[in-house]
Each structure stands twice: as C-alpha cells, then as structure tokens.
C-alpha cells in the first residue's frame, strides 16, 4: 500500500543484554490509512509501547531497531538522523502519553508550550502562535481558554491536562498521532470525554491515530481496525468488529473471555492459564502454545506462525471461528 500514512514492515526491535539479545518487537507489520484509527492492544510486556516508541524514534538505549522499515507517507523514517527525526516529531507525528503530568513541562505555562511547538514547526510569529494556541485550547474543550492559557500544568485537573496534551499533539497539524494509553490514568467519565474528543478532532482533520491501550472496551468503541500483540508479535489484525466479535486467534478469544462485561452478571470469568512468557524465555514454536487450549503438536515444533503465513488475519496454525474450522465441525 502506497497511500498509507504509516507503513511498518517486519519491524524488529532488539535489546542486547549480557546474556542474550532480547526482541521485544519481532517482525511486526501493519499499515494505517489516512483518517484511520488503528488500535494496538495487548497486555503489559507485549511490546505495544515499544512499537509506538520505535515509530517516533524514541527508543531508550540500548533498545534499537535492528530490522524492517517504517515508512511515513512513503518516506523511510527509521534511519533518519537525530536532527531530522526531531523535526518530524511534533510536525508530522503527534504524541499523547499515558501520564499527562509528565508529558508537560511544569516550569512553562501551557500557552508557552503550545506556542513553542507551533513556532518551531509551522514557522509563525509569536503573536499568531498565541492566537492559535487559544483557539487550540478552545477546540479541546477547555473553558475560558483565553484566561487559562497563562496557567501552569499543575493548575489543571487530570482530564484537563490530557486535553492540553491532545491540543499540543495536534497543534502542528500532524498526519499521525500516536496515543499511548491516553486514558489509563483517568476516571471512566473523563475517559469517555477524552476518547470522544480524540475521535472528533481526528475525524475533522483526517488525522490517523495509532491508539495503544490494554483496554478492550476502549478499542471496541474507538478503533476502526485492531492489532492484537502477544510477546512482541502480532497475533491478530483486522477490522475491529470482526477481530473482537469473532476472534480467530485463541489468545484474542481468551482475552475477550477474561474481560468482565457488565451484562454478564455473576458468571465465572474465562481465564487464560499461566502468564505471558518472559523475553528471552520464549517457548519454541508458537509463543502462545503453553497457554493455548487448542495447541497441537505442530504448534510446539513448527516455526512461530506469522500473519503473512496464515492468511493475514490471525497468526495461528489452528485458528478458531474461521470458515475452515467451522466447515470441519
């Protein structure tokens, strides 16, 4: 696909340690179309944040990209020098992180932070930047934007701070926003506000979003397509209603079953036995097989299934809910 805003091809991230080379991201490929929201869902340690950080070039050393490519609007960005990448960040790719307090500078007013970004990336004057900053705050729903522009981050509540961060991410009109757990630190009612805001703004500007979260509910309501990550690999990728509604990978099915639903009443939750393998202790074959109820001998011996090898939807040798498996029953 050439019209994709972001293309990630066989991305591998490595962390060399004294004992072994760990691969927190191992052969991940996906595209994000203009205006599309791709949800990336997985449990802690699955490599979802690592993927996001690789895309914006913010991997902490010694982690580094050791294979594959990342293309933004057809241009490779994974091998750019630091200075070029720095220009790109903010201008072409906006970022929203989990904790709004740590992503804002406590010593600068929010107006200064917004203006700085716009002056740097859009090359506009100080006065113009201030005017646009007020408009941006107004747009993310901060009441009395003109009065609050000279406030410091600590003077805002958690939800309001996250709105400021979203304004900051979108003020230079990037084509892609990477939102890493944007609502995890927030209460449900505020979460609903922030999700609605992010969706509205991205629709209005045709901005693509890579939404990284562990919350299946947020993904279901927000994303167009979803990528399920397990042990650094994509387990399943597809339109959100299909992947969550009729999951084909046993891991996705297990995740959906373990997520409590209000309507289910006091039923026992389905549980996936065991826990995610530690990096460096990955089992041979499919990384999910020790926990998989459907595992067969070939899952333990054959090389790990990839999306490309398994019809592009679920990386599994024996998918559930697939047309073939249902025909077999």
């Amino acid at each position, binding site marked *: 696909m050439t019209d994709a805003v972001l293309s990630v091809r066989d991305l591998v991230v490595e962390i060399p340690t004294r004992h072994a080379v760990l691969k927190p991201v191992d052969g991940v490929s996906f595209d994000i179309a203009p205006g599309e929201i791709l949800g990336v869902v997985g*449990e*802690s340690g699955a490599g979802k944040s690592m993927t996001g950080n690789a895309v914006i070039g913010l991997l902490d050393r010694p982690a580094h990209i050791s294979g594959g490519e990342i293309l933004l609007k057809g241009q490779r960005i994974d091998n750019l020098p630091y200075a070029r990448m720095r220009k790109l960040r903010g201008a072409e790719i906006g970022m929203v992180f989990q904790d709004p307090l740590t992503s804002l500078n406590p010593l600068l007013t929010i107006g200064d932070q917004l203006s700085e970004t716009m002056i740097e990336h859009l090359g506009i004057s100080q006065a113009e930047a201030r005017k646009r900053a007020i408009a941006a705050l107004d747009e993310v729903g901060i009441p009395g934007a003109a009065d609050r522009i000279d406030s410091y981050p600590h003077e805002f*509540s958690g*939800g*309001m701070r996250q709105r400021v961060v979203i304004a900051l991410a979108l003020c230079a009109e990037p084509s892609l926003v990477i939102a890493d757990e944007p609502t995890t630190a927030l*209460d*449900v*009612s*505020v*979460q*609903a*506000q922030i*999700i*609605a*805001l992010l969706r509205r703004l991205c629709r209005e500007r045709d901005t693509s979003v890579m939404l990284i979260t*562990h*919350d*299946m*509910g*947020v993904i*279901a*309501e927000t994303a167009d397509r979803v990528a399920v990550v397990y042990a650094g690999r994509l387990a399943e990728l597809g339109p*959100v*209603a299909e992947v*969550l*509604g009729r999951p084909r990978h046993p891991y996705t099915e*297990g*995740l*959906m*079953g*373990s*997520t*409590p*639903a*209000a*309507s*289910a*009443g*006091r*039923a*026992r*939750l*389905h*549980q*996936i*036995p065991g*826990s995610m393998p530690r990096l460096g202790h990955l089992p041979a074959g499919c990384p999910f097989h020790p926990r998989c109820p459907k595992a067969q001998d070939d899952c333990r011996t054959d090389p790990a299934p990839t999306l490309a090898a398994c019809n592009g939807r679920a990386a599994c040798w024996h998918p559930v809910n697939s047309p073939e498996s249902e025909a077999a029953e």
Partner: protein
Amino acid sequence: MTAIVTVKNLTRRFDVSKPWLNRVIERLPKRKLVAVSDVSFDIEEGTTYALVGESGSGKSTIGKMLVGLLDPSEGAVEIEGVNLDTETDRARIDKVRSDIQMIFQDPYASLNPRWKVRDIIAEPVAARGGKTQGLAERLLEQVGLSADDAGKFPHEFSGGQRQRICIARALASEPKFIVCDEPTSALDVSVQAQVLNLMSDLKDDYGLTYLFISHDLTVVSHMADTVGVLYLGRLVEEAAPGDLNARPAHPYTQMLLDAAPQLDGFGREVDPPKGEIPDPINPPPGCAYNPRCPFVVDRCREERPQLRPFGAGRVACHRAEEVVARMDKAS
C-alpha cells in the same frame, strides 16, 4: 442472614489547612475536606459488598475505616456487633481484629522486599503467637502457587503472583471479613480474571465476607451481591448488580454505566458526560451531583437527598422515579 458489618452515619473529615504559621500570617481559615459524608450500609455474612466510585469518591477511606487504619470523625463501624472505637474489653477487640484482613491495590508496594514469602504469609499468625509450621506452604498451594515458593523473595514473582501472595497472607489468620481495595486494578485482564476467580472460589470455600472496592463497574458486577455507588463521599445508590445495570435509578449511576466502554460497542457514539467531580473542600450545596445532572431542579440545589428505599435497593435522589421512568420510555 445477619449483618457482619454495620456502618452507621460514617463521616470522615481531613484537615487540609495550611500550616499554623501561614494561617496566622495570611489570615486563612481552616480547611476541611469531607472525604466520607454520612454513609450507612450493612454487609450480610457470606456476601460480597462492593463500593464503586471514581477517584476522590471516598471508597478507600471507607475501607480503611472499616479495618481500623483510620478513625471515623463521626458515626460508627460495628463488626460482629463490636465497635472497635469504643469497645474497652481487650479480649473482644482482639477477637474481632483477627477476623478482619485487607488486600491492597499495589502488590508491589504491599509486600516487604526483604522478607521471604514464608515470613510474609505467616506474619498475621506469628504476630499473635500462633503456630506457623507449614502454614505458608499450605496457603500458597491454596492460592495456586507452589509450596517451594515459600523460600523465595517477592521480587521473584510477577504482579499476579504477588497478588496471590497478598491473598494468602490475608487468609493466614482465618479471617471472616476481608476488605479488598482495588485488588486487580494493577493487573492485566487475563491475570485479573485468574485473581477474581480465585477470590470467588476462596469465598465459597471459607465462607468469607468481602468488601470489594473498585472503580470498575464491570468487575464489580462479576463479584458483588450488593453494589454501593459513591459520589463525592456520599452513597448515592445501593442495589444488586443486576438491577443496577438494568435499571440504574440515580443519574450518576446511569452516567457511569453509559460512559464505561462496551466490548461490543463498535463505533458507538457516546454523548460524553459533562463536567468533572467538584472540589470536595467546597462541595456544591444540596445534591453533590447537581452541577452535572441532566435532571436537576431547584430542590436539588438546596436540599441534600437522603438515601431512601427504592425498588429492591436504595437511592439518594429527589427525582429517582422520573429518572427511571424516562429511561424505561427511552428503551
């Protein structure tokens, strides 16, 4: 059925004033934060009572007052008919104390990193001079870990395993009543499912009573027999989880249920709730929810609604009848 825990008109105020000298020089008044305001409920023996609310709603403060980590400013907590605040009989206090245990939210912060798991689990018994031989090993197997784990240190375990250790420790003194303060909110969904199932099994095996504190209404529906919804330190609604989900009678509960993301809500457009939780130091007069409530009338701004029986549960809203009627019509 008898109530094992009775909470009556419980109120807790925290003094958040500036230091004395600043108050004198800057002529500031004392400032009081009312974290819990006039909350009453009963927990029947062998059931799970859940407290749900957003941050700042006072749910953890209530939990701490129940186990005696905080003293109430007003009102009383009675456990097995004993008020630990006023009781003077040492033996009765000891008896009740050993029947109460607590499981905390963060399994990383609630285990001493320098102690072996064996010592951590046996501590509640050892502290009372009880017999601890083989106790930790037996409990570890009960919570799904292996007996060999008793010789390890907490850092050798994952978050879910640590929470199992916390549960084993809570079970050591054979309590009747356990306060669980967000026991799974630091865990991943698949691990959360394991821990919640374990807690349900143990409850049935030992006939335990839980106070389950959570911010997540969906988790609560799986665990609780009765749910109490808190807003700004006040109990606004109390009902069985099925009734609460089907026919929420308080506008705040409706908002919470509506705002919670749904697993099958593909592309659902939610009308996001308005406003934020008000400042608990200066709560709005009347009903605490009135600035955000779509059903607000003048009475709500003047008179604080009392918790009253409604259907099979209780609700604190002047207009609960209309709220439910409006919802029935809409659906």
